[in-house]
């Protein structure tokens, strides 16, 4: 909402500097996003385009000769909309303009453009800082005086408001004026609404029927006869231009002017184009179409509300008028519409037609049902004044959705409870009064507050509390630290585990990354097995921002692999990353199951002596060490069993089991995937389902006594089939009493070990709590180990 300061000043005295006023308004909830000071255009003038010639060296450029009142300049112009006769803003050398690319102010200098010298330029609205429009040059109204500084013609300070959706009343200059008045202790000058009713009565000439009262609570119509269509007066055109609207003709300009002034969208029909002189407000019929004022054709559906005559729709209610009833030069009788439409319906219609207009923007927020009549009266007064017409006696006013005025009962105690301060009744009454509320104080403790008709957002006592707070200033409310009882803590074990895993993986030396959870289908499918895809088909978005961001991830694999590849391009040494995040497993007719996963990925040469990459690359056991270290920190024991998955290299995948349950994967990603993601080298990836781990993570660990007696250490080497997992041999050894630990220190194949066999060498520690093991005890334990390994694994003691 653009509010020219001089227009605002018509309704309220501006007693503060504009910056301070803007801050007060912003603090009170009406955000002034920008203050545009038009008066600062130096060396920019109103010019007229006199002649256009093609640029000798460039097809898209023209040479424009611009008259500046006694002097003529020829400059290079690239705008598609430049035309002879236009009044345009012309900048001479030295003017400060906004660079349309950077948005920063720059000084215009003489330049040679494709071999032709250009000593000035015709400006776009963006270059002048008026708006973001850079599609072409700005075209001024035809009556703009040639040669005068633009600042004198357009010079106007404009406040740009970002009005929140609860305040449609502030989408009007009068509404802003009411706020200014309340904030600065001034009073509002309401615009005059009276007009001479010189024409015959409206009743009997035009008829209005509301067939859909649920979507049209009120419809006010009036006739103005004998209008002569022409340009509106310069002052009105300038105000409209400064507020960002394009002047069209006097009738249309008045409807727009009153919309900006009072916030009520109006529409003017050419009465003679309405078949039967009749307005029907009804739902559209299936298949109806309407050519709109902007030249597009709308296909209407029965959910949409239209204004129709006897035969056909002539406007989409609250959105845009139709071309078939447009006011043009030949119009003699105008039917003015000032209505109230159901906000959600207007919003749905505008959205489905992709037509967000000034009117729909206001209606969708729920305008006051009491606004149509004063707004119609205001427009009729201006039409009588400016269009040479005579206004018919009376208006048609159908009000099926008539409401009572809103009264809110507010207790003094409630205000204190919300605001934290007990306000004196006189202050309450004064502040509310300044905003147009009237307040009746009923001792001992109650106010009855009558809400002014334009404030559709005030319904409950707390709304009134906000009014009091924002007008006197939030900064003036008391501040105190939070006190009161602290609720008893509730455990959140999964979250705690997740954060421990984050810390542990960082401590192990991996970098945390956070990837987007959206991906394209093919990328997701490339890292999933068919069973995984079938069990949890990825959820699709209905309105993805792009094809790459269409499906919710069911795995962390793709995101990590992509991030690894991206970093490998700029980092020759090892890249080791982890992510802890959710995957989304779809369920029928319910929200997806969101599973907390942790995953690691690592690849590349290990660091060498002085940080140079070494010859040695990260391998499976480096990745496994990360998970093992994590498990140690968590107090978990895990088994790594051979597994198969299409995303991994066959023979290089372990299924991670905790307490016999699968809890994750660890392996080398398939080279096919590595090259698909444009990563390099052997890439190792592991993932853990934190929910699967959670039940096995000890909350507190039990103490085990430490022996005071030294262990006896011995080595043991056995030969087993190559397929026997070393972890099984170790588990068998560690089951034997007296064995404290069995550490694998060598795996050997080759002569003299027979083909198909391997030698496993363990360092054994024998230890007892209450004595040093005797040679005899150790020998017995050792032979028990050998016996069990032979029985269970077919192991032979290596001689």
């Amino acid at each position, binding site marked *: 909402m653009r509010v020219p300061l001089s227009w605002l000043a018509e309704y309220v005295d501006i007693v503060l500097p504009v910056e301070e006023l803007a801050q007060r308004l912003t*603090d009170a909830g009406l955000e002034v996003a920008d203050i545009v000071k038009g008066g600062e255009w130096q060396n920019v003038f109103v010019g007229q385009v006199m002649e256009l010639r093609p640029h000798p060296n460039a097809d898209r450029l023209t040479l424009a000769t611009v008259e500046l009142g006694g002097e003529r300049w020829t400059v290079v112009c690239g705008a598609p909309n430049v035309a002879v006769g236009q009044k345009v803003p012309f900048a001479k050398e030295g003017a400060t303009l906004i660079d349309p690319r950077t948005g920063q102010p720059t000084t215009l200098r003489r330049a040679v453009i494709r071999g032709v010298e250009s000593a000035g330029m015709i400006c776009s609205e963006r270059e002048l800082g008026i708006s973001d429009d850079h599609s072409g040059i700005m075209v001024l109204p035809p009556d703009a005086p040639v040669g005068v500084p633009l600042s004198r013609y357009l010079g106007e300070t404009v406040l740009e408001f970002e009005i929140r959706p609860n305040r449609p009343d502030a989408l009007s200059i009068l509404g802003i004026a009411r706020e200014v008045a309340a904030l600065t202790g001034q009073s509002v000058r309401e615009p005059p609404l009276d007009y001479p009713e010189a024409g015959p009565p409206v009743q009997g000439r035009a008829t209005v029927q509301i067939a859909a009262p649920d979507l049209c609570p009120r419809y006010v119509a009036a006739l103005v006869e004998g209008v002569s269509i022409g340009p509106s007066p310069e002052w009105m055109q300038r105000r409209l231009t400064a507020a960002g609207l394009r002047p069209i003709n006097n009738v249309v300009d008045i409807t727009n002017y009153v919309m900006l002034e009072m916030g009520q969208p109006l529409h003017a029909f050419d009465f003679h184009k309405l078949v039967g002189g009749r307005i029907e407000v009804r739902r559209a019929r299936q298949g109806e179409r309407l050519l709109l004022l902007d030249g597009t054709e709308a296909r209407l559906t029965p959910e949409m509300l239209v204004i129709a005559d006897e035969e056909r729709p002539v406007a989409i209610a609250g959105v845009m008028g139709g071309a078939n009833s447009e006011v043009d030069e030949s119009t003699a009788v105008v039917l003015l519409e000032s209505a109230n439409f159901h906000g959600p319906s207007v919003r749905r219609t505008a959205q489905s037609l992709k037509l967000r207009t000034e009117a729909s923007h206001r209606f969708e927020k729920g305008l006051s049902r009491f606004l149509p009549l004063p707004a119609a009266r205001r427009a009729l007064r201006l039409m009588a004044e400016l269009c040479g017409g005579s206004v018919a006696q009376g208006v048609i006013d159908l009000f099926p959705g008539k409401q009572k005025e809103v009264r809110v009962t507010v207790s003094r105690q409630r205000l204190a409870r*919300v605001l934290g301060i007990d306000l004196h009744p006189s202050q309450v009454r004064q502040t509310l009064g300044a905003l147009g509320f009237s307040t009746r104080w009923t001792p001992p403790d109650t106010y009855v507050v009558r809400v002014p008709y334009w404030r559709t957002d005030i319904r409950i006592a707390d709304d009134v509390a906000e009014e009091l707070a924002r007008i006197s200033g939030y900064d003036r409310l008391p501040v105190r630290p939070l006190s009161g009882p602290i609720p008893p803590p509730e455990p959140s074990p999964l979250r705690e585990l997740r954060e421990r895993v984050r810390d542990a993986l960082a401590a192990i030396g991996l*970098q945390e990354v956070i990837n987007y959870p959206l991906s394209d289908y093919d990328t997701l499918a490339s890292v999933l097995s068919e069973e995984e895809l079938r069990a949890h088909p990825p*959820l699709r*978005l209905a309105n993805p921002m792009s094809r790459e961001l269409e499906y919710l991830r069911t795995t962390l694999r793709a995101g990590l692999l992509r991030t690894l590849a991206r970093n490998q391009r700029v980092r020759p040494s090892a890249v080791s990353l982890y992510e802890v995040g*959710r995957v989304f497993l779809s369920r029928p007719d319910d929200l997806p199951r969101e599973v907390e996963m942790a995953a690691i990925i690592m690849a590349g040469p290990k660091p060498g002596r002085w940080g140079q990459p070494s010859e040695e690359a990260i391998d499976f056991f480096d990745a496994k060490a990360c998970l093992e270290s994590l498990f140690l920190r968590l107090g978990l024991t895990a088994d790594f069993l051979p597994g198969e998955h299409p995303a991994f290299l066959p023979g290089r995948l372990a299924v991670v089991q905790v307490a016999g349950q699968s809890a994750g994967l660890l392996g080398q990603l398939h080279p096919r995937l590595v090259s698909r993601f444009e990563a390099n080298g052997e890439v190792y990836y592991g993932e853990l389902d934190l929910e699967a781990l959670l039940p096995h993570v000890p909350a507190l660990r039990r103490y085990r006594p430490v022996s005071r007696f030294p262990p006896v250490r011995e080595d043991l080497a056995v030969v087993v089939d190559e397929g026997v997992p070393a972890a099984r041999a170790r588990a068998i050894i560690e089951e034997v009493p007296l064995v404290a630990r069995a550490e694998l220190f060598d795996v050997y194949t080759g002569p003299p070990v027979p083909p198909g066999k391997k030698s496993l060498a363990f360092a054994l520690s024998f230890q007892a709590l209450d004595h040093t093991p005797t040679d005899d005890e150790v020998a017995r334990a050792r032979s028990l180990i050998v016996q069990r390994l032979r029985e269970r694994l077919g192991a032979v003691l290596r001689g």
Partner: protein
Amino acid sequence: MMSSIAEELESIDREARAALAEATEEGQLESWWQQYLGRRGRLTQVLRSLPSLPLEERRQVGARANALKEALQTAYEERRAHLERVRLAREVAQAQLDVSLPGRPLPVGRLHPITQTLRDILACFQSMGFQVVEGPEVEWDYYNFEALLIPKDHPARDMWATLWVDYERDGERPMLLRTHTSPNQVRYMERHQPPIRIVSPGRCYRYEATDPTHEWMLTQVEVLAVDEGISMADLKGTLADFARRIFGAERQVRFRCEYYPFVEPGMDVLIDCFQCRGEGCRTCGYTGWIEILGSGMVHPQILANVGYDPERYTGFAAGLGVERIAMLRHGIDDIRLFYQNDLRFLEQF
């Protein structure tokens, strides 16, 4: 006879001292000792021959030989001490390193800067007695909008451009990626009774084109306190405390009116710009003030909807953008850096 022994002593004296001066290593010292003072050493032999000498001569030669033995022993000790000093000096000289060479690299893992900032924020509220609870990222329209008093076709829906899940029920799309963490307010209150003090962090998603200040994935923290007697004063106190703990004890804090459909009154919190100290710079958009979060008093209708008596209980809620706070604290000028995951960026934190 006498003179030959005396001569022998003189020659031992001369030769032993010369040899000792030439010994430079432990081994040479050792054999010198063997040669002169050891069991078969020359001086030992002289001393052993003394008893066979006549008394007079024995006295004279004996005194001389014993004196020589003492002298040589002393010389030996001195030489040894000298050589030890030389050896140490040599070792010390050799021990010198270029201490400016880098240490052997250990892998350094780090938390993502958003994780770090989020933890600081949560720790701040936890120290005030707030508990951390979480909710789903894929949410029902009901919790994300309707329960927060934003019904279908409400214009406030424009404040959160929404990504919808492709799932229809009864002709409607009821499932979405949550656009904020506020749904957790309702989810938590549905299952708990006051007093309530929670913070609820999590990722949120918006249909948004990315640029240096916009990202479609963001991390929010929802703050909610409900109890008897909670007012705007508590809200202001809690958030001012938070702002100073995160941005510095000297920060000035301001409050202003803002609209969120699920609070009444609604409030934004601003701090004075720590870049320019209020002078006006790019960080604060030349206003001197930086908006850090949105908040307000929980709308009484929401309390009533979850079964609380809104006349008895009041509450406040706030929502913080973690990326924005991280950008302000670390001077990061492009929000997209967080999820590009470039190690050259991540390793700075």
